[in-house]
C-alpha cells in the first residue's frame, strides 16, 4: 500500500514542482533576490499548495486517525531552540547560494548535472551530520512512530 501511495504522491509532487518551475534555480533566486528585479511567482506556488492542503489538515485533525497507517511520523521536538534556528540559517544559506532546495534538486537531477552535484552534496551533508553527531545527546537519532494525537 505504501508503495503505491509513495509513488503516486511522488509523481504529483515532482510534476507540481516542474509545472511551478521550482526546479529552475533562476526562478527561485529571482524570488529570493528582493534587491533585484523581484519575481513574485514563487509566492503563488505557496498560495496554491496551502489552499488545497489546509482544508484537509483541518479534516485530518477532526478525524484524528490515519487511513493506511497506524502511526504519525513527525519529529518530537516542536519548540524554537538554537538547533532549529541554526539549522534554518544553514539551510537558507545553501538555498540562497544556488537556488536549489531538496525536493526540486532531486527532481531536477534527472536532467541537470548541476542539480545532481547539489543533490549528492546534500546527501553527503546529511550523512556526515548523522555520523559526526551520533552519540551527542542533543542530536540523537529522531524518534519515530509517535502515536497520533489529534489536536
Amino acid at each position, binding site marked *: 500500500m505504501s508503495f503505491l*501511495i*509513495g509513488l503516486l504522491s*511522488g509523481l*504529483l*509532487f515532482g*510534476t*507540481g514542482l*516542474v*509545472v*511551478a*518551475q521550482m*526546479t529552475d534555480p533562476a526562478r527561485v*533566486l529571482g524570488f529570493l*533576490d*528582493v534587491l*533585484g*528585479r*523581484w*519575481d*513574485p511567482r*514563487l509566492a*503563488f*506556488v505557496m498560495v*496554491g*499548495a496551502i489552499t*488545497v*492542503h489546509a482544508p484537509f489538515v483541518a479534516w485530518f485533525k477532526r478525524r484524528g486517525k*490515519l487511513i493506511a*497507517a497506524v*502511526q504519525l511520523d513527525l519529529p518530537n521536538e*516542536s*519548540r524554537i531552540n538554537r*538547533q*532549529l534556528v*541554526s539549522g*534554518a540559517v544553514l*539551510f*537558507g*544559506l*545553501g*538555498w*540562497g547560494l544556488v537556488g*536549489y*532546495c531538496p*525536493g526540486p534538486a*532531486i527532481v531536477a537531477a*534527472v*536532467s541537470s548535472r548541476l542539480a545532481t552535484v*547539489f543533490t549528492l*552534496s*546534500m*546527501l*553527503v*551533508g546529511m*550523512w556526515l551530520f*548523522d555520523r559526526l553527531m551520533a552519540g551527542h545527546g542533543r542530536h540523537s*537519532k*529522531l524518534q*519515530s512512530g509517535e502515536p497520533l494525537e489529534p*489536536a
Partner: protein
Amino acid sequence: MFPVDITSSLLGGVMIGLSATVLLVTLGRVAGISGIVGSLIAGNKFGTELATRFPDGSARGGGFVMPHEVPNVGAPRIMTLVVAGLLVGIGDKNGQRLHERTWRMRNQSRVDSIASSHGYLMASAMLVAAFSRHFVLGGRP
C-alpha cells in the same frame, strides 16, 4: 515591470498541495523530501518503502514533464554547488527535519514558532541571494 504569469505557479502549487495531502491522510507523513530521504540515511526502518518510492515517483513525474534540456545560464561553479548542498543537508538535519517540524508547530497552532523558523530560513536565503548576486557577481540577474 515583471510579467507575472501565475497560472503555472498556482497549478504547480495545487499539485504539491494534493501530494502533501495524500501523504498526510494516508501514511501520516509530511511531504518533506529531505526528511523522507534523511530517514533512510539515518537507518530509520519506519517508512523505508516510502523513503525510496516518494523520491522515485518525484523524479519520474518531474522527468516526464520537464524539458529535455535545462538551460544552465548563469550556472554556479561546481564548488559553490557542493558547498550549498552540504549546507542544506547539514542544516536540514541540524534543524531536525525542518519542514516536518514546522508542520508539527502548525498543527499545534504555534504561529509565532512557524514565523520564526520560516523567518530565519527566508531571511538567510534572501541575504545570501542578494549579496552574492549584487556584490559578488556584480549585479548579474
